[in-house]
């Protein structure tokens, strides 16, 4: 049984047709994890007991001839910022080293209800803060295509595990590009849905106006299947939108003839790697050949997205991370004489450098005398960015860009310069600020064999169009 590039459809079919059992399938994936993951470092914890309990439940359904749910027996992995009941959930941070989640994240619960088998928890940058997975409080993740390179971040483990065949699909989170950038670096499909499309109940919050949960998969169709399962209103998350969930899978493979695809000048400027440019331009040609109309557009404020993001995201993070005080859960420093000393020492010892840097920046931006100059200014610029996309989407059905300016960089290459690391998200971060959906699809490789991703951005709640265009890109690239 070849599980390396196994899709959701294949996994489910093999279980349904009794070519394998859900239990045997889970065993094969655990064997592969044992063989491969010491080199890659994608998993932080395995949840064998929970996985085999679910697998045998699916196997009983098959034996009884009962109807099988959409993800019956499909082995999946979960980014460690998503809570999994009674399983250690660390958010990649030492401060949550032994934290056992008291309840399930809604997205995780929905996957499991649809029959998915949860293999374990996936490594990530601490509290999802990073672009290379090197900020994990535990160990870095290595890119399966070149072990000396990063898998991207912050959902590095979620991308690398799919790329290395250690899960059929995974969940990650995207606050400034943390799903799409690692998907591009690892050569898999990564989807960030519209803000509000997927409930964040049980997601350990980083920046609440920017956080999204979304899937990593081998194919566009699998991404459509996953979104269909996790999307929709959740009474436990008041920011989840009450917007109907359409049949996303039906959009996959639909003709794209006559669709208008915008290509923004600002995303093809100086600094774009020549091999990335060539691969993305090839995708543009492919879509033109499939009957799309390619429209040159302009998004003039693009360069302001990163500075805007680093004010808004850090301000929200400084507030969200105030809850880690050592009182009710998480790490508590030993031997503090006063409550105040306990707070400080617990946070000092528990948080890593990047998390402290962002808490400080966010606290500074919100502090007396600076609020107008930084936070309010950034929120106004955010409105400008949103307006530019509205103007663009009045002309086009979707926007096509490179996902990242370069292919995966080397481990250690950017760790000494936070700003340089931040600039990696230059093409992904605007969609988070504006709340629109984005997908990264593999569109080729460099001569050295590193994957390249093309990004498609869509209108609010129009993931259907993304799946349609993305499947055309995927079809032409394969």
């Amino acid at each position, binding site marked *: 049984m070849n599980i390396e590039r196994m899709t959701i459809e294949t996994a489910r079919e093999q279980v349904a047709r009794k070519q394998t059992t859900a239990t045997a399938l889970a065993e094969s994936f655990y064997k592969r994890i044992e063989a491969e993951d010491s080199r890659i470092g994608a998993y932080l914890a395995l949840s064998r007991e929970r996985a085999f309990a679910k697998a045998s439940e699916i196997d009983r359904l098959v034996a009884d001839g009962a109807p099988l749910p959409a993800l019956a027996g499909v082995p999946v992995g979960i980014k460690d910022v998503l809570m999994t009941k009674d399983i250690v959930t660390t958010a990649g941070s030492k401060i949550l080293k032994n934290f056992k989640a*008291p309840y399930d994240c809604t997205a995780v619960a929905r996957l499991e209800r649809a029959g998915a088998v949860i293999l374990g928890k996936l490594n990530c940058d601490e509290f999802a803060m990073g672009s290379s997975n090197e900020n994990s409080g535990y160990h870095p993740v290595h890119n399966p295509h070149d072990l000396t390179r990063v898998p991207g971040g912050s959902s590095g483990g979620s991308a690398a595990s799919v790329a290395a065949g250690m899960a059929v699909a995974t969940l990650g989170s995207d606050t400034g590009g943390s799903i799409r950038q690692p998907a591009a670096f690892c050569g898999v499909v990564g989807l960030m849905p519209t803000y509000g499309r997927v409930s964040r109940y049980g997601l350990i919050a980083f920046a609440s106006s920017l956080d999204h949960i979304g899937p990593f998969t081998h194919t566009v169709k699998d991404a459509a299947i996953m979104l269909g399962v996790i999307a929709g209103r959740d009474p436990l998350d008041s*920011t989840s939108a009450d917007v109907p969930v359409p049949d996303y899978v039906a959009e996959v493979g639909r003709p794209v003839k006559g669709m208008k695809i915008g290509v923004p000048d600002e995303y093809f400027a100086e600094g774009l790697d020549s091999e990335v440019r060539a691969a993305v331009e090839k995708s543009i040609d492919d879509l033109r050949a499939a009957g799309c109309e390619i429209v040159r557009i302009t998004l003039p404020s693009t360069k*302001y997205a990163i500075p805007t993001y680093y004010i808004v995201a850090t301000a929200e993070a400084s507030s969200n991370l105030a809850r880690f005080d050592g009182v009710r*859960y998480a790490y508590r420093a030993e031997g503090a004489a006063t409550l105040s000393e306990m707070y*400080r020492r617990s946070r000092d010892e528990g948080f890593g450098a990047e998390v402290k840097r962002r808490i*400080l920046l966010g606290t500074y931006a919100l502090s007396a005398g600076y609020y107008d100059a930084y936070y309010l200014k950034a*929120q106004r610029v955010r409105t400008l960015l949103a307006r530019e996309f509205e103007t663009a989407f009045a002309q086009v059905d979707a926007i096509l860009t490179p996902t990242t300016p370069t292919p995966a960089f080397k481990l250690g290459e950017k760790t000494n310069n936070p700003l340089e690391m931040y600039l990696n998200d230059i093409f992904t971060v605007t969609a988070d600020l504006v709340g629109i959906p984005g997908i990264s699809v593999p569109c080729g490789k460099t001569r050295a064999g590193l994957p390249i991703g093309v990004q498609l951005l869509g209108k609010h709640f129009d993931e259907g169009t993304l799946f349609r265009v993305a499947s055309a890109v995927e079809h032409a690239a394969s």
Partner: protein
Amino acid sequence: MKVTENDVTYVADLANLELTDSERQRMAKDLNSILDYIDMLNELDTSNVEPFAEVASKFAGNQSSGSERFAYAMRADKVLPGLPHEAAMQNAPDTDGTYFKVPKVIEK
């Protein structure tokens, strides 16, 4: 230099962080380089631009107006089971079985 080490100490204090001397130095350097970059935002005239509110507001009940548009976000005022006490306490660093225990609150 926008941010001095004293500023870092002040902000760290607000954020309940202590930081070592070398951390303070490093953070002052990093914050200055990030804030210099962020200064780019001042190139934009935003005097007539409203601050961004919330993405979903555009999609929330378009027919109604004001806070009515977010009526869907409200649940019925009905008591439902919450997290059991035992589950809420299971990760407590220190507890007497009923309450969370902390060091002395009133200093001096």
